[in-house]
């Protein structure tokens, strides 16, 4: 009888599920296993899963005999920061931009001076670039082209995505430095941003989501991290990269979340992991995934040359940028409003 069969299969599935969900028993003679919880932004997914985590596990086991298990979460940087602040007990946070780490400091979760490292807390770097379809059919050469009619642009939502904020800085910074027309005023930068936002059809949660949308055929151009495009190309996706004349240097911070690491008793492990990320060997690995190194002694020949570059500090630092660009009613908000006013 059908119902009988369903009851049987439900029971079987339940048993299977319970078996799968229960972890194995601890063997008293087995080496010590320790768990490291990492909360990261969306982009380093492949680099972590395919290279960094296995390498760290190997190195640590060789050094201490302990086995490291990882629990990882990759989501949009802003969301990840809020999740960690809201109770996600990550031992290490690797986020897209400094303000997101500051969120953790403000929540009292990072008690040390996380910037007191040789690389000032930064572990990876990239630049904001434009991705286009193979052959660049719409002839996109620079930021201004993204504002032309008939081009669909992808960029994520600034409220959740760190990448989106970097993208905005790329456009605005380039304009203010006189590389998008001669006018370097804030009003002009706002107008340029508005013209780009007018062409945005999908605002995904994070840089990775945005990239996936692009790969699925949405949009003509995507503003994203250079390394996001590299990873896409490695995965077999067909796209071309356009490096604008002037763009922002993305600096991604990583820090030990002291409160949680201490609570889990893995502070040493977390410290080691963050330091591990900036070792030349690991930076070289990151370079394979398109992340530009932040230490010397790592070959950068494969990276395309850049034009004018600037950092968040060059634009006044994140503190001032949050107020002038990203707050409610600030530059981004005004640009989005005027973009939607024009769109209809």
């Amino acid at each position, binding site marked *: 009888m059908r119902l009988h069969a369903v009851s049987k299969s439900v029971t079987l599935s339940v048993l299977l599920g319970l078996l799968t969900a229960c972890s194995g028993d601890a063997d008293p003679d087995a080496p010590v296993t320790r768990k490291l919880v990492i909360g990261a932004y969306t982009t380093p997914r492949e680099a972590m899963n395919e290279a960094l985590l296995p390498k760290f596990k190997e190195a640590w086991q060789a050094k201490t005999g302990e086995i490291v298990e990882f629990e990882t979460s990759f989501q949009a940087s802003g969301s990840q920061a809020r999740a960690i602040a809201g109770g996600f007990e990550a031992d290490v946070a690797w986020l897209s931009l400094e303000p997101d780490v500051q969120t953790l400091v403000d929540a009292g979760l990072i008690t040390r001076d996380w910037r007191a490292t040789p690389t000032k807390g930064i572990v990876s770097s990239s630049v904001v670039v434009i991705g286009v379809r193979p052959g660049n059919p719409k002839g996109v050469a620079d930021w201004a082209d993204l504002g032309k009619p008939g081009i669909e642009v992808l960029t994520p939502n600034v409220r959740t995505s760190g990448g989106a904020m970097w993208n905005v800085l790329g456009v605005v910074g380039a304009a203010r430095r006189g590389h998008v027309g001669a006018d370097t005023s804030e009003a002009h930068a706002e107008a340029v941003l508005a013209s780009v936002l007018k062409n945005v*059809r*999908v605002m995904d949660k994070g840089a990775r989501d945005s990239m996936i949308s692009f790969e*699925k*055929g949405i949009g003509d151009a995507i503003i994203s991290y250079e390394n996001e495009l590299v990873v896409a190309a490695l995965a077999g996706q067909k796209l071309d990269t356009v490096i604008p004349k002037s763009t922002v240097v993305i600096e991604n911070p990583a820090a030990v979340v002291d409160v949680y690491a201490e609570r889990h008793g893995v502070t040493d492990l977390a410290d080691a992991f963050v330091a591990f990320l900036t070792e030349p060997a690991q930076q070289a690995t990151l370079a394979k995934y398109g992340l530009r190194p932040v230490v010397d002694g790592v070959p950068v020949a494969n990276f395309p040359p850049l034009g004018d570059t600037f950092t968040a500090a060059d634009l006044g630092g994140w503190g001032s940028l949050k107020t002038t660009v990203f707050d409610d009613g600030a530059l981004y908000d005004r640009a989005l409003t005027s973009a*939607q006013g024009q769109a209809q």
Partner: protein
Amino acid sequence: MRASFGVWICALVALPMLAVLARAADGGLSGAWEAITRPAALHALGLSFGLSLLVVGIDLIFGLATAWALVRWDFPGRRLVSALVDLPFAVPTLVAGILLVVMLGPQSTLGGALAGVGIDVIYAWPGMILALCFVTLPFVVRAVEPVLEELDPAEEEAARTLGAGEALIVRQVLLPPLLPALAVGAGQSFARAIGEFGAMAVLSGNVPRETLVGSVYVLGEVEAGDSVEAAAVSVVLLVVSIIAQLVVSRVNQPWGRE
């Protein structure tokens, strides 16, 4: 003792809702009002409302047609159609979104062709409407079917032989028993559509004030750490769907009535 258990269940259900209400009022009534009337929030709510109404309209027409065809006529594949009608209720709504992406995404043949002529489906209203139609498909059909089955064709025959025109038959004979069933189906569809999240998370465009619906707006606010704004918009969505649910309950003659 038993009565107190009833109170206990009420508390289990009410507490989370009260928490949302309380958080929405955290900035005072004016704060909540401001959060709701923000352009992006207002548009998201309006879009949810509008799309849901449109989808209910579509459901009423096609649902009635489907129920009619299933009850009154014999056609090849009737059993298959009847089996298919129940599936959207079983399938997780996230999967519903995935289904549409598989079938109509730009990399599919159908989707690519449509995109070629300038029709965007995924990440645009057409796709969202299709997804909502999918998840609400069973309600009108299954609400109307039992009523149609109960209808005695003899009544209609009698009316016809007495010379009544089709319009009169529809109005006097068919509509009265059908209306409550249609109301129930519409109410259930509306309640489901307005709060729909899974499918929307997969295939709505998320562009504020264009393709961002209420439920995804709430998620955005939660992820942005703005729980007050999220709660305020949630209260509006809750009130609307609770009203729709109440309509259904009252019409349905709940088993609680003496």
